[in-house]
């Protein structure tokens, strides 16, 4: 189907990022680097109560702090806060210290509610405090989704296991926190946002502030990562706008790491009770699951990327003829969830892939063989076989728990599916071709760090017969032709066909205007010269037939587990991935490396910890909200399957889906017992091994 060239010079090769130099030299301006003329610092006062009615917010004393230029309330009148860290007010001033002092001078009157609940298991109980007054925290009887008949199917199974698998709330922690610099004057509003959706930020700001869309401009030259939570300007963006208007100056309001843990999104938890059975020949036959998780006070705040809810796909990538699945979201007094890199998939993969290995062990089947029998997808079949060979699965595999000694080794694998990853038809772009042969592409998309500029340059260079460094690419400005948000792994598959379209049109016009039969490559400059004094401006749009969706991917992990200290060391992750036509191998591998590292954090370290009694997040920092460091990261080997015939597909999300499941299974294979809960900490390993004594009454 695909019209992409068969022979390529740049597409599918290794092109270093065209903006690599400005990034490593610090010249690239990230949203948090923006210093608009006369800018002020902005900061937010947050609720120190998990539940309270805020009856009054007095800003007078805050305004008197030297250097303070504006102070605004988050909401007018009395209002209710439902989680620790909910926004109450904000200030803007000439220094951070002035803002800090002002926050402490704000007088808040509140009727504190002592009934609140932050633990999702407690919140499901009948006598639990209610997060939303008069409404249960979770449905009493979630409606089951059924296929076939599980009640008759389970007795027909030769082996059945029941497992309980849980995953924690994962906090959004991109290296650059959420935030904006906003300048709001009578002429309009400009926001320099750390966002993965400049258009959605513009639309959100314009809608909330009742401005014409044409009066709002959003700029994101460079931003430090967005994983689903950065589609909107957020409460912090609205507050920055109000502060800017009041102060008549630009306000930079970037969140602190502490703020980041509270109110700007997270991946919901999951508590998956799974019963699964197979026939004697190893075919999955029956699956029954109940899952609940919490998305905080609710899901979907600023979730332009879709999802963010607590439901997960079950039984994930496997086809089981008889299934019954019940799921429910549980409200707790905590910040709302948002879309988070492959919403729903990493917890689904961890739960289901764990159950698969537990059942394989009961059947006495090699878990890889078990997958090949029950996952009919032709691409994953190919990936499992290729990966197994490169990984040495057959040579390394031993029965669970049979590794000798104190430090045990184990291997595991898991698969991914990502239904999105295709292009957005609403992707527009321009190219301006100058008589001197220079060419500039302008796209109203943003680079969330994955290399969008480089992708555009690679495709253009290939089609025009130029070098990537000869292509100037401008993105991240709503003044450019509109493009989609970077969510669902769609940016690469959105811009590449649009660049294709632009290049085709540009070549046609150049050839017509110059009289040259082929304007590419060595003829490029001669053709451009014939333009005379007027540049050629070409508009293009995403076209069908050049991109697709539905990437797969499988990963293999090898671990060592110290059975006395509980420490898990990931020795190797082999990641086999497909994403249709590969545009740039270097940026692709980089994205997969990042996905594996993030998946590893989910498997072993990351977890939001909340205190039942005070309702606060106890680990709003990287000291105790633990993330993988260099010393933790294993040898990651990326194996790519190039499928040009499918067209371009995104990779951002599938790359992180199977890692936790593969690592968890490798741990199970090493120690022979299941740690049914992420993150797999030393404490949980020692408990699973039966080494932990009972607690003595406090």
């Amino acid at each position, binding site marked *: 189907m695909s019209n992409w060239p068969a022979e390529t010079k740049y597409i599918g090769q290794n092109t270093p990022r065209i903006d690599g130099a400005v990034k490593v030299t610090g010249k690239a301006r990230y949203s948090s680097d923006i210093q608009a003329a006369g800018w002020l610092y902005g900061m937010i006062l947050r609720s*120190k109560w998990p539940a309270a009615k805020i009856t009054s917010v007095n800003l007078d004393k805050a305004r008197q702090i030297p250097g303070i230029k504006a102070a605004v309330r988050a909401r007018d009148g009395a209002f209710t806060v439902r989680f*620790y860290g909910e926004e109450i007010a904000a200030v803007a001033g000439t220094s951070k*210290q002035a803002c*800090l002092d002002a926050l402490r001078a704000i007088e808040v009157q509140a009727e504190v509610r002592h009934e609140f609940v932050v633990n999702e298991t407690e919140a499901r109980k009948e006598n639990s405090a209610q997060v939303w007054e008069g409404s249960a925290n979770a449905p009493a009887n979630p409606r089951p989704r059924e296929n076939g008949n599980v009640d008759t199917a389970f007795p027909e199974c030769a082996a059945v296991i029941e497992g309980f698998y849980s995953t924690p709330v994962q906090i959004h922690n991109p290296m650059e926190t959420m935030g904006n610099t906003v300048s709001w004057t009578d002429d309009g509003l400009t926001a320099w946002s750390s966002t993965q959706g400049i258009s959605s930020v513009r639309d959100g700001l314009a809608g909330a502030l009742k401005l014409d869309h044409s009066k709002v401009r959003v700029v994101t030259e460079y931003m430090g990562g967005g994983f689903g939570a950065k589609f909107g300007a957020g409460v912090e963006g609205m507050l920055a706008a109000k502060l800017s208007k009041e102060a008549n100056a630009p306000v930079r309001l970037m969140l602190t790491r502490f703020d980041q843990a509270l109110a700007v999104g997270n991946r919901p938890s999951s508590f998956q009770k799974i019963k699964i059975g197979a026939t004697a020949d190893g075919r999955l036959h029956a699956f029954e699951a109940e899952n609940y998780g919490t998305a905080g006070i609710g899901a979907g705040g600023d979730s332009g990327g879709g999802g963010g809810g607590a439901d997960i796909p079950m039984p994930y990538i496997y086809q089981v003829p008889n299934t019954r699945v019940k799921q429910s979201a549980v409200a707790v007094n905590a910040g709302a969830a948002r879309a988070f890199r492959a919403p729903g998939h990493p917890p689904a993969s961890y739960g289901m892939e764990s159950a698969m290995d537990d059942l394989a062990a009961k059947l006495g089947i090699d878990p890889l063989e078990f997958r090949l029998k029950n996952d009919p997808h032709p691409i994953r079949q190919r990936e499992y076989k290729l990966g197994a060979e490169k990984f040495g699965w057959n040579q390394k595999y031993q029965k669970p728990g049979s590794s000798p000694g104190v430090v045990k080794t184990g291997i595991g694998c898991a698969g991914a599916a990502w239904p999105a990853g295709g292009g957005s038809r609403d992707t527009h772009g321009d190219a301006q071709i100058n008589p001197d042969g220079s060419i500039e592409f302008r796209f109203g998309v943003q680079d969330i760090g994955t290399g969008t500029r480089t992708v555009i340059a690679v495709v253009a260079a290939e089609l025009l017969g130029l070098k990537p460094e000869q292509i100037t690419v401008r993105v991240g400005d709503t003044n450019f032709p509109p493009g989609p948000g970077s969510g669902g792994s769609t940016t690469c598959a959105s811009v590449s066909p649009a660049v294709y379209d632009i290049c085709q049109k540009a070549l046609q016009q150049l050839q017509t205007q110059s009289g040259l039969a082929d304007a590419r490559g060595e003829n490029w400059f001669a053709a451009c010269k014939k333009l005379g004094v007027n540049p050629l401006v070409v508009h293009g749009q995403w076209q069908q037939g050049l991109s697709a969706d539905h990437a797969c991917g499988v990963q293999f992990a090898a671990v060592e587990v110290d059975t*006395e*200290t*509980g*420490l898990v*060391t990931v020795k190797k992750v082999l990641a086999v991935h497909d994403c249709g036509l590969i545009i740039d191998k270097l940026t692709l591998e980089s994205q997969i490396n990042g996905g594996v590292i993030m998946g590893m954090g989910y498997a*072993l*370290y990351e977890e939001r*910890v909340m*205190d*039942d*009694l*005070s309702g*606060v997040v*106890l*680990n709003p920092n990287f*000291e*105790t909200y*633990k993330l*993988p*460091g*260099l*010393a*933790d990261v294993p040898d990651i080997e990326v194996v790519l399957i190039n499928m040009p015939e499918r067209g371009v597909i995104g990779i951002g999300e599938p790359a992180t889906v199977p890692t936790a499941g593969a690592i968890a299974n490798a741990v199970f294979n090493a120690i022979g017992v299941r740690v049914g809960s992420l993150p797999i*900490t*030393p*404490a949980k390993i*020692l*408990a699973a091994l039966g*080494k*932990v*004594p*009972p*607690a*003595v009454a*406090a």
Partner: protein
Amino acid sequence: MKAFQYATAHSADSARELVAGKGAYLAGGNDLLGLLKEYLISADLLVNIKSLPGLNKIEHGRKFWTIGSLVTVAQIEDDADIKKTFPGLHEAAAEVASQQIRNVATVGGNLAQHSRCWYFRHRDTVCLKKDGDLCYARNGENRYHSLFTGNTCISPVVSSLATIFASLEATAIVLRDGKETRMSMAELYQRAWENPLAHNSLSNGDLILRVEIPTARTRSAYLQASDKHAFDWALVSCAAAAEIVDGKLKSPRVALGSISPVPHQVEAANQFLDGKVLDEATATQAADLILKDAKPLEHNAYKVPLAHALIRRTLLKLKGEA
């Protein structure tokens, strides 16, 4: 943080005079600035003591080595003589935080650092340690907390250096009220055992000047277990030191960190080990003695088998480096 004044001291006595009242000593600042930024403490005056003469040296004596309180953790880690003479001290220093932090963290600051309990460190919880009414951790999230304590607070000491110094029977020399006072590691933390408000036995104005380490114990070792492979706090740390004479332990000492408000030492275990040939069974018996009275809570009971493993490994490491 609140505004403060800043002064540089050029003698220990003037530092002490400056800090009297509401001042605080500033050396590496890793702990102090964190506390100030979270408004957990306030100081009217920060007294820079990095300028104090003579406190940034490692001095070799026949019976004692002296480490100045301004010696950085990285200096200890990188010192080849320390690695040879006190291998456990080298190992403990190498495990502290990250390279950047070790570069500025001082011995005095490492010993005097405050609790890392996440309730204590949280800006909006008022726990016992902050003069509140209850220890939230005791019935709450206590995975990182103590197995032993002499009071209601279960925040443990986390100084890696205190753990290894205790096993080496090192002495801290503290300037108190103008006089030099000698304190064992047990004494340096005793007040935290008794009083939830205390992180150690130092009073405002007390200044650690140096640490003296006896050279008698020619073998030493340190191990810690963490959630992660680097730049992470110890869940449990363990240090051991001894001489080995005719294949037998002489004057052995074992100390553990992160399981008690003080470096955890059990004299009965040290006595049991004295004169013994080190083997797996001996190490196991010592570990049993050391952990006998542990009082695990809901989420920290894993520290019992973890500490047990570390005690055995650390002791056997003493033997391995013959």
